[in-house]
């Protein structure tokens, strides 16, 4: 479903990704782990088309399409969703208004009719339950004054509404206490379906106790240096990134 080949990318003229190769099949959950500065967040920014990141070599094919040729909004409409590490606050725009605009942009692209306010609210109430989010937050300005946990729940709630084919979860566990982490993980697990693939980007193994991956990859200095199953994440937790470095250099 997603095929990344020899991907190089830079930001502000500095090369961060130095030849990434990854194959993600339909319905698979891949964990991408790595120390700070290894290029984890750059990978999600490049896949979603952040204008500050320049792809200098390589290709990304998503469901047979050249993903890198598409604008950020086109990628989103094609079904690529990013749960942001730092969700943005937007004063003056309610969560409901924002998400209804987004949902209708996606629906129109998929050949579905626009959803009116009534049907939107009905669907939203149903999906709020997936992440245990309060309805009151729908009517507040997007992410403004939300706690860290509320922001992350709101990301997963948006994923539940937009029903992407590929979900990228960028450090979704950062800043969460264990209860919030469990709630967010429950939400993510409820969204695991046969056709939906997930890339779970995380520094720590903790999140992977709750969102159990099919595959684990270790990113270092902009390359995938090690791949394995879910046990690799546990081994990393035990032995640390220094161990990977030794293995790679050996």
């Amino acid at each position, binding site marked *: 479903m997603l095929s990344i080949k020899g991907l190089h990318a830079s930001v502000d003229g500095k090369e961060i990704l130095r030849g990434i190769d990854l194959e993600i099949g339909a319905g698979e959950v891949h964990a991408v782990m790595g120390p700070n500065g290894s290029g984890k967040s750059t990978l999600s920014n490049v896949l979603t088309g952040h204008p500050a990141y320049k792809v200098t070599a390589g290709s990304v094919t998503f469901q047979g399409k050249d993903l890198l040729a598409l604008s950020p909004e086109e990628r989103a409409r094609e079904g690529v969703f990013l749960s942001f590490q730092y969700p943005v606050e937007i004063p003056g725009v309610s969560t409901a208004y924002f998400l209804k605009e987004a*949902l209708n942009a996606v629906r129109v692209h998929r050949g579905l009719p626009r959803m009116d306010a009534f049907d939107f609210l009905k669907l939203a109430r149903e999906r709020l339950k997936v992440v245990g989010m309060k309805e009151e937050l729908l009517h507040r300005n997007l992410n403004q004054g939300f706690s860290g946990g509320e922001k992350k729940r709101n990301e997963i709630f948006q994923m539940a509404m937009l029903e992407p084919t590929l979900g990228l979860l960028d450090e979704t566990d950062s800043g969460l206490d264990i209860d919030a982490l469990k709630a967010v993980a429950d939400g993510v697990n409820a969204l695991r379906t046969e056709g939906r693939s997930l890339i779970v980007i995380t520094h720590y193994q903790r999140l992977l106790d709750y969102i159990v991956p099919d595959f684990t990859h270790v990113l270092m200095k902009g390359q995938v240096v090690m791949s394995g199953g879910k046990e690799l994440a546990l081994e990393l937790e035990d032995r640390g990134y220094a161990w990977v470095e030794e293995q790679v250099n050996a």
Partner: protein
Amino acid sequence: MSGLAWTRVVPQDALSAARAQALATFDAVGFPTRKDEDWKYTSVKPILDAELAPQGDAPGEVFFSGLADTPYRLIFVDGHLVDEALPEGVRLVPLGEEPRLGALAPAEASAFVALNTASFVGGVGIVVRRNATVTEPLVVVSALSDGETAQSVPLRLMVVVEDGAELTLVEQHPAGGAGLLNLVTEVFVGENAQLRHLKVVEGDEAFHVAHIAASVARVGRYLLHSLALSGALTRTSIRVELVGEGAEADLSGLFLGRDDDRLDHTLHITHDAPRTRSNQRFKGILDGQAQGVFTGMVQMKPGATGADAQQKNPNLLLSQGAVVHTRPQLLIDHDDISASHGATVGQLDEAALFYARQRGIDADAAQRMLTRAFALDVLETLPEGSLRDLATAQVESWMETP
């Protein structure tokens, strides 16, 4: 000088002496130049170059809409009152007999005030009777016609809200005319009285130079919302004197400019009495080659113990060519006050734009969404209902105009 014949018109009436004096004041000071602090960033040259005719004897033809739901109104066309319907508790007084004329806006205030005083005909005083609470807004429309010769139209208003009374005044300046409207409004807010004043200038090729001078008595409230929506030259100067203990001025506004628009808000607030409060919240959004000016001066007099003044002027520039000059100024004669101000100039938040696009919203729609949110935030100071809806519709209509 023939193009400036409109500056030499002095009607012969009960006010002749005051008019002659005002004209002498104008002759002594002349039109403001960029050396005048109050006009540092706004040139009056386009007005002087415009070859305006003096005000005509009769109103021209105008077309505007949006008054169907307005039971109470005063409609001026080219400075002539053509329609009036007043609510209970409100009466009109002729200005020729009004001793307070010029008390807040003396000819010395500016060249335009001097010329207005020298030449206005047919302005009115709007008086709200003591303790009268007028629930329906009184709408004052001032339209300029778009005839063969563009005129200079001086219009003079006075609003007196007597002790304990309450009024909502909606002042509308519809687009579509030509020439200059030189408007002077003197506002007296009595003890424990309230005036809510929504002023909307739908800009066009016409010049709009307005001078509002208000005085607020003990625990009175003056709530002004000023919207400048484009305009070749829209200048709104606002002077408020908080003369009674506990008097309040809450002033907010939006200036939205594109193309070659010139929009200027210049405010002077004087705290004369203890525990007076003022709040200024003005936002600018400028696109194209537009230029915006915000000058907000607050003066704290020695008697203003425990006074509080807040001021904010965030601005959004949507193009490389757009400019905003923002000048917060605070003059304090003593320490026992609290005050804060904040002025910012920025572009749309790139992170917010990307966030919206990542959700499938296209770049243009995301930009419109964020710009709209930035603007409408100011209107939240208006009470929910018809007034806020009117202002929101005006702003949205500006945004939807390409």
